[in-house]
């Protein structure tokens, strides 16, 4: 039988129907089929978290998910953070900028998508809870302290704004 599979996914609210090879990862599908390059691919075997996206609002490593397994799912990627009307950065993005939460930026999309899930569920996380949540994401250059600062700042800003 053919290994091509027909899938229907909603990515950042847009519906896509595509024929994909069964072995294609969701990360490669997003990057190469949909040209959504914001989702980064570091290790391609589940260690670094750079490829984190939300699948049905739950954080997941898109390199450890086949595109076919995302059939009929809602995918949210880092491209969806920015306000589509005003173009303004999401408070999480702005906080990473302001608190120096990134240097080369390679790991940043993964950290931000992980932060999005955390702050949706827990708008006022303790330092311990932030560390626990970010434990699956690696950064090789910024240093985790300023990433912690960025998440704390994002939490403050999201609480005090109605934007969220």
């Amino acid at each position, binding site marked *: 039988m053919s290994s091509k599979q027909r899938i229907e996914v909603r990515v950042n609210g847009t519906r896509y129907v595509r024929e994909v090879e069964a072995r294609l990862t969701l990360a490669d599908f997003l990057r190469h089929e949909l040209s959504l390059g914001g989702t980064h691919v570091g290790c391609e075997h589940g260690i670094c978290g750079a490829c984190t996206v939300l699948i049905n609002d739950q954080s997941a490593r898109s390199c450890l998910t086949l595109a*076919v397994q995302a059939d009929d799912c809602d995918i949210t990627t880092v491209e969806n953070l920015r306000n589509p009307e005003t173009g303004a950065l999401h408070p999480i993005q702005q906080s990473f900028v302001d608190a120096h939460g990134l240097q080369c930026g390679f790991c940043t999309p993964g950290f931000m998508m992980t932060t999005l899930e955390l702050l949706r569920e827990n708008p006022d996380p303790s330092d311990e809870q932030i560390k626990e949540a970010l434990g699956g994401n690696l950064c090789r250059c910024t240093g985790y302290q300023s990433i912690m600062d960025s998440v704390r700042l994002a939490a403050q800003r999201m609480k005090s704004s109605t934007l969220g």
Partner: protein
Amino acid sequence: MKPAPFDYHAPATLDEAVALLTRLEDEGCDMKIIAGGQSLMPMLALRVARPEALVDLRRLDTLNYIRDDAGTLAIGAMTSKQAAADSALVKRAQPLFHAATELVGHRQIRNRGSVGGSFAHADPASEYPAVALVLDTEFEAVGPDGARTIPADEFFVTYMTTSLETTEVLTAVRFAPFAPQRRWAIQEFARRNGDLALAGVALTLNVDGGLCRDVRIAAFGVEATAVRLTAAEQLLEGQPAQAAQFEQAGKAGAAQLDDPMSCIHASSAYRRHLIGVLTTRALGEAAARTH
């Protein structure tokens, strides 16, 4: 770092899945079940595994549940580990299994990884097999010859190998009621939070009138499967639940290990040392636990 090509099937029902596995087996196809993919996908990416076909269980919603079955906790194989971690029922009914679940990987891994997948994968460093050995755990599987129940001590065979047939689907795990007075603890050492442990210990015991009874201790991360530390268990039976006895039990447990695994992260001797320390610590933690 890309998986080699394979055929892909996503059967809609358990019957279809078993029929498909049976047909593929008859055709001599090297097939693999995929659940959450959190262990299998890295193996495919690294090409440590190169199956000709994958049978995906993602459409089997009937295997996604957490239920109280007359006191027994039943968890469908396709239930995510995060769902188990978030379940008040799991936390109340099986506190040790719940604590172990929170130690598995990171949130992203628990969101996708299934409860059944961790047992079926039988990674020697996983918390789950050790927990199964110190609780009264049974596994339910369905294959071409129908359903069967497998007790935990017959389920784990060796390194990443269970007694499941290749045509069988693990459908559920069942934990017999955990007596409220029973003590428990799980302790592990990992290089980073969320990593697979270098070594760990899960245990349960009763403390009656200050004496240890019915002690069950299992070590993980050290041998080809999780192992019961029978020497430590026997040493403690009927003995005072005190630090000195826990220290001795740790030594006995460590000494009992055959030949702990060795890798660049931890030598065999270091893993043996860890088991001694973690056993003593876990016993202390369990004894001090108030209900």
